[in-house]
């Protein structure tokens, strides 16, 4: 069974505590740890998710590192660059947990304001993700070839602008980061409503759902999307197993903090959690063969 964890940062999250939690989950066979910061939890901590994953890339060696990042605010170009960097540094263990809603702290913090409701947010998130996917796909294989004899560091004829244009975005590209080991992070999102399932199932590789009904809705939206059931870390193993079967989920995503990461690791061990071989996050989740590049969204 695939076991992932969501590590919610909080006031007591020190660097040693976070790294200890990540290594404990890694040792228990957990495929990925998703780092949630204040924009996800509302709890202030010293850290932000994408930068903490940059550090964890150096202090873990096997577990997938899923950074939570907004698919509404900021710039898709920066987001693509940051996660490509994490993917390079972690040897292909990166994931992106799409933040498709507006956190309390974000309401009037950015240039763009969410004023048109949930559907407009989901539409924007899908476009944002599409831009990132095109940027990660803007270098052909082999475009980076430093040839000391000729002086060619790269082959510009195999690197392409994306020239993305929509009402909300205009991004020329290409990305200025050479392709990373995984080419792109694995995309994950929480799905809490039927509308989210319909919008996000075709966009992401992995959907995190709270119950069987939404697991079914995701499967209906895109049968190739991996479904993980979200459970608290203190769920008894037998109950967790039964609920996972009921939802027909491929695995679970265990909610924990630095204080309860041990419990999540114990539950993962009870499940016999294993990572698929290959070293990348996509491989750990069994997605290495099916992960597509370029735009997924229609």
């Amino acid at each position, binding site marked *: 069974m695939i076991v992932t964890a969501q590590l919610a940062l909080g006031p007591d999250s020190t660097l040693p505590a976070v790294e200890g939690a990540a290594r404990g989950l890694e040792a228990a066979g957990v495929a990925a740890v998703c780092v949630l910061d204040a924009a996800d939890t509302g709890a202030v901590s010293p850290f932000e998710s994408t930068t903490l994953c940059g550090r964890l890339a150096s202090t873990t060696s096997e577990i997938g590192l899923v950074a939570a990042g907004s698919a509404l605010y900021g710039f898709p170009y920066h987001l693509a660059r940051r996660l490509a960097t994490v993917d390079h540094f972690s040897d292909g263990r990166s994931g992106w947990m799409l933040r498709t809603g507006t956190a309390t702290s974000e309401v009037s913090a950015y240039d763009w304001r969410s004023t048109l409701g949930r559907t407009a947010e989901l539409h924007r998130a899908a476009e944002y993700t599409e831009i990132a996917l095109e940027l990660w796909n803007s270098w052909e294989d082999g475009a980076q070839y430093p040839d000391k004899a000729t002086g060619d560091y790269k082959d510009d004829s195999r690197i392409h602008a994306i020239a993305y244009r929509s009402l909300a975005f205009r991004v020329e590209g290409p990305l200025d980061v*050479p392709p990373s080991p995984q080419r792109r992070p694995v995309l994950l999102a929480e799905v809490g409503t039927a509308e989210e399932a319909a919008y996000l199932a075709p966009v992401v590789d992995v959907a995190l759902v709270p119950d069987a009904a939404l697991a079914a809705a995701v499967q209906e939206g895109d049968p190739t999307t991996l479904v993980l059931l979200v459970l608290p870390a203190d769920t008894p193993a037998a109950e967790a197993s039964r609920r996972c079967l009921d939802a027909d989920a491929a695995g679970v995503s265990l909610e924990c903090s630095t204080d309860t990461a041990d419990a999540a690791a114990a539950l993962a061990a009870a499940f016999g959690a294993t990572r698929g071989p290959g070293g990348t996050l996509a491989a750990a989740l069994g997605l290495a063969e099916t992960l597509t590049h370029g735009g997924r969204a229609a």
Partner: protein
Amino acid sequence: MTRMHPTKHPEMHPKMHLSLNLTEYGRHSGGWRHAASDVSRIPNLAAYRHAVRTAERGLFDQAFIADTPVHSWGRSSATTTRIDPLEIAAALSTETEHIAIIATLSTSYNEPFDVARRAASVDAITGGRLGINYVASTGDATARNFHRARQLPHDQRYARSNEFIEVATKLWANAPTAGRSGSRVEHHGRFFDVDACLDVRQPMHGRPLIVQAGSSAEGRDLAARWADAIYAGGSTLERAQEYYQDIKARAVAYGRDPDSIKVLLGIAPFLGDTAEEAAELQAVLDANHAEGADLVGHLSGLLEYDLRAHDPEGPLPFDLLPAVKSASVSQATLFTRMAREESLTIAETAYRSYVGGLANMQFVATGTPVHVADVMEEWFRAGTCDGYSIVAPILPQTVDAFVDGVVPILQQRGLFRTAYEGSTITSHFGLSALDPRVPAAVA
């Protein structure tokens, strides 16, 4: 490691501050083609790690990561792999304990709230060792990655920078700490409309270190207002002295202690065990880079004027050159002035503009460690700077040779620390605390 007692009268015995320009192969565009350069992995995190560890072994104040968030078409500036600077800083935090890491961030294509939360996080990850080099980005190509058709005009770029730093600084000043919750910042300005409370804890020293570079009047003014350190260029001693005096005077005009802004002069040291070896290294790197390249085309781009119709062996058509619009004013001015003052031909100017990359913006010292130390001492004592930004032409060779060869000489001469005074950005600069730099009207 034993710590030195703080100097009682630091003004009596000024010590140099040192920064390393951190890249994979060095800032010389020919560095990667050197036989010893390891290009098997791009980006090469191991190369960054080695360089920053060596700089810390050499007791450097800081390591600096440049950045321009746009793909660089063509061969001319192909050597620097671009990845996210805050991610590099976070990754390198495991390698070091003392040295500050300075990450470049564009004020043209970022949002203050996002920068404030990510930088606060990296500050915590590095144990309070983060600095930010704010840059007003140039070029329409960069603008097009961020929803704009073209860049802002020069004056607006700096107006935006100023407001950007102001908003980020206010967000940090009002951020939550371990002991108190944060308060909202309401900012309704020309470029930013922010009403928010930072949701990441306040940086250890209240804010990250602020570093600037820039030689235009607006750039100098911005630095004098905000920066704790400035990366300066100066191709002659007199010009560097003028720059130094000007920055300090501008800081005083902002009500600041002139010593609270450190001027770090860029120097590109080509080091060798002998003068011949050093000259050979420079020649090899220059030739590596220029071979097969469109040199005059490159200079035409910098000057925004097509020089290809002119005789390459003749002088620049000074009277025909326009004021540059998109390109860097600093670079255009530098090469025009260089050509005029040294009576260079178009071909010679083009070669200079092409080889060496950023090394053109600094002064170059080529020779033995003793020679480089001599030059650094002379310029330091002549009042051109408070220290140096080592624009290493080739890594890891330059930092290895500098730390093993030049640092001990500077130490023997009493010009450089023999141990870290502490492991924070404030202790390196001899400060007890960072001025929060919150504008009085909005504090």
